[in-house]
């Protein structure tokens, strides 16, 4: 009935509800499509991506003998796969399909219908001309190496690692600090349930340590990455801690034995609120429980003249090795989860809050340590001079929602401020004032927690603090920190003298987020957090296959959300591994022997070393498994001897032609 050789194109114009129909005249567009060469059927439909929409395509393929499909709808990044599948279900090769983007490219970025429709016609024309050139293609497939790399050992990394390990997959967990645990390990209680962070985290930490399927490398960085989904080659640099993890039993005698009788070095884990020795473990529950020697402060490293009492103390275990050097581990993995977390906003950037100037202005993280039973003050909330504060002011949105620093809402500050307010009141009985712009308590049980705090008579003042100063107008303000703020609800400007100020600093991307981004070849959103493939449909995937995101490196979020996301990332990885292989886009380049002049121009160009030169045949050859399909060699070949599936010169020429020929 239909001659298989003549090209019969089916055109489907999507309304996308009103998303497209509002600014593109879809009826006119479809009618126009019908008039284009080779077009056998041209329809418009409310939602082409819906089931009935896809059925429509399948049906037409049978009834009208269509052998090419063009859908004019959204971005191929959203639904190209959907429609290719539909095309295949209709009995055609999936690659006899082309997608025309009239939503992101037209209806959403253009106001008037006339110019919009005109533009849509151009693109549709181009699409129809292009698809006519399409040829049937087969997807390649790459095997997936079952091992997984997880970068960052905070709660996100830990949860993902355990999920995967329990499913029987081998995980390499790489953490740059001496211990895993991340920010959560520093918290005392967690909102809104107030269950102790350690009680829920430390068991998970130790099971990471003991899990047969997890290789844990702390004090280490990922220094190089090559390869692609399914088979990545990763180089991990393990910094020397001068104590052999395999020999150390965690007795910590070396620490007591250190020639420094008092701890003198401000300790990082407690933000300098406590002190440590040159040989130390960041905190008692550290995993692994193996001390680190800090060459910056260790006498032996500085002068070479130390009694080395630590080595004595270690005795015949011989775990201490002062000649230890950085070690490189090279591993093969099939997929990667990036969970590198966040850094807290530096409160010094808001000088009018006096952080770093007035000793009793603290950041929220510092106070987390103060209220923590295992913290530097053993849970005593005290001022630098040891006094108990009688009044405390908690300042929200420091480094959040501010055009002068970070524009975004950090999502967790409202809740952790409430939590700290509760804990401070509990520990000290102090009057606690919260200064907020908007109170955001959208999570499960959050609003109830807010209510609880209101009933505990914590003061809530709606207003962004203007300044914090140490000068008083009268005796009641002398020697206090005075917070000046407009109480916007009472409609009064107030001066509130307090003993202690807590700055609820926001969350921002890690300082080295850009290096990490480059290393793993993923993108950032404008504020610098890592960009997910799609905010709704692919929230933990990235644009690099096999690389997934979990936790605050993707954006500020609380512990429940982080754990949920880590689980999701683990599930994505499992799906990948259990499929055993991943189908590849058949957009690889290939050499047309008859035209190859053997000039070798292409060989040097390929970043994946996929092109080899066959000396005996004097021809280049492209390894289809290695080729990633960038097409650089295609554009470079002086004798046009290289083609690229899906992006053939002919196809692109036709597309350009289609755009520019005024029909």
């Amino acid at each position, binding site marked *: 009935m239909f001659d298989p050789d003549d090209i019969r194109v089916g055109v489907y114009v999507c309304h996308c509800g009103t998303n497209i129909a509002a600014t593109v005249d879809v009826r006119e567009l479809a009618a126009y499509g019908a008039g284009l060469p080779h077009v056998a059927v041209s329809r418009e439909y409310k939602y082409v991506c819906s089931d009935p929409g896809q059925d429509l395509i399948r049906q037409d393929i049978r009834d009208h003998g269509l052998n090419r499909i063009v859908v004019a709808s959204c971005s191929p990044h959203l639904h190209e796969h959907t429609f290719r599948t539909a095309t295949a279900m209709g009995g055609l090769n999936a690659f006899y399909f082309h997608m025309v983007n009239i939503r992101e490219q037209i209806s959403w970025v253009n106001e008037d219908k006339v110019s919009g429709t005109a533009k849509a016609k151009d693109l549709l024309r181009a699409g129809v001309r292009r698809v006519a050139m399409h040829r049937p293609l087969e997807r390649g497939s790459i095997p997936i190496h079952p091992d997984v790399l997880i970068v960052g050992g905070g709660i996100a990394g830990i949860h993902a690692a355990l999920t995967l390990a329990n499913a029987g997959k081998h995980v390499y967990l790489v953490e740059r600090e001496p211990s895993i645990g991340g920010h959560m390990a520093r918290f005392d209680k967690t909102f809104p349930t107030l269950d102790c962070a350690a009680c829920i985290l430390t068991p998970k930490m130790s099971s990471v340590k003991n899990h047969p399927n997890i290789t844990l490398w702390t004090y280490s960085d990922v220094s190089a990455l090559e390869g692609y989904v399914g088979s990545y080659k990763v180089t991990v640099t393990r910094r020397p801690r001068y104590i052999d993890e395999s020999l150390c039993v965690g007795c910590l005698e070396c620490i007591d034995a250190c020639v420094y009788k008092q701890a003198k070095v401000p300790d990082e884990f407690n933000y300098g609120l406590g002190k440590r020795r040159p040989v130390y473990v960041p905190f008692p529950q550290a995993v692994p429980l193996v001390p680190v020697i800090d060459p910056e402060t260790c006498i032996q490293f500085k002068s070479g003249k130390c009694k080395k009492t630590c080595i004595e103390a270690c005795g015949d275990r011989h775990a201490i090795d002062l000649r230890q050097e950085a070690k490189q581990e090279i591993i093969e993995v099939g997929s990667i989860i990036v969970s590198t977390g966040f850094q807290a906003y530096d409160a010094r950037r808001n000088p009018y809050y006096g952080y770093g100037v007035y000793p009793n202005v603290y950041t929220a993280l510092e106070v987390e340590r103060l209220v923590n039973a295992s913290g530097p003050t053993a849970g005593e909330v005290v001022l630098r001079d040891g006094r108990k504060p009688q009044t405390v002011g908690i300042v929200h949105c420091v480094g959040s929602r501010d055009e002068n620093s970070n524009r975004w809402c950090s999502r967790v500050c409202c809740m952790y401020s409430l939590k700290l307010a509760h804990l401070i009141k509990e520990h000290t009985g102090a009057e606690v004032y919260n200064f907020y712009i908007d109170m955001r308590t959208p999570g499960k049980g959050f609003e109830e927690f807010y209510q609880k705090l209101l009933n505990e008579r914590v003061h809530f003042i709606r207003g962004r603090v203007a300044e914090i100063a140490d000068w008083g107008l009268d005796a009641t303000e002398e020697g206090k920190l005075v917070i000046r703020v407009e109480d916007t609800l009472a409609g009064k400007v107030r001066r509130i003298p307090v003993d202690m100020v807590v700055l609820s600093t926001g969350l921002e991307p890690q300082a080295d987020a850009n290096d990490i981004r480059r290393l793993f070849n993923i*993108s950032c959103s404008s504020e610098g957090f890592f960009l997910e493939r799609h905010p709704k449909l692919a929230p933990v995937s990235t644009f690099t296959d096999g690389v997934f995101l979990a936790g605050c490196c993707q954006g500020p979020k609380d512990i429940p959300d982080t754990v949920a996301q880590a689980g999701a990332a683990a599930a994505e990885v499992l799906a990948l591994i259990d499929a055993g292989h991943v189908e590849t886009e058949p957009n690889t380049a290939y050499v047309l022997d008859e035209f190859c002049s053997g000039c070798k121009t292409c060989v040097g160009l390929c970043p994946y070393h996929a092109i080899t030169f066959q000396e005996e045949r004097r021809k280049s050859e492209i390894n289809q498994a290695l080729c990633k399909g960038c097409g*650089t060699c295609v554009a470079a070949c002086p004798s046009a001897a290289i083609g690229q599936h899906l992006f053939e010169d002919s196809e*692109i020429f036709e597309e350009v032609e289609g755009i520019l020929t005024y029909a």
Partner: protein
Amino acid sequence: MPEPFEPKIVAFFCNWCTYLGADLAGTSRLKYAPNARVVRVMCSGRVDPQFVLDAFAKGADGVLLGGCHPGDCHYQEGNYKALRRFKLLQQFLGQMGIEPERIRLEWISAAEADRVRTVINEMVETLKRLGPRKAPVETQFAEAS
């Protein structure tokens, strides 16, 4: 009165940065001039100078190339190749009597929706200032390609 001159721009956007930037412009509902027509390629390195020449030959008033920022290329260094070719191409077009402003190479990341808008709007302005392309050049290329 005659219709105002609406330049037509053929834009080659790389799949991983600039095309996504344009998608983001869409989802953020940024409004910009409707004059650009985007052709998606996997990498700016895929853009064969012939595509550009062909576009001009077929009557494009301007050609825009979009790729990832240096160091961010999804394929490691395709965008550098694109840059090298672009420089040559611009000279060559100059000799052909095509103003260098008619072709533009821009690094636009997946996050820079606003950049997409600015670049396209700017380019439309420039082209409106330059006016339609002179006919003779067109024929030159028709033979060339």
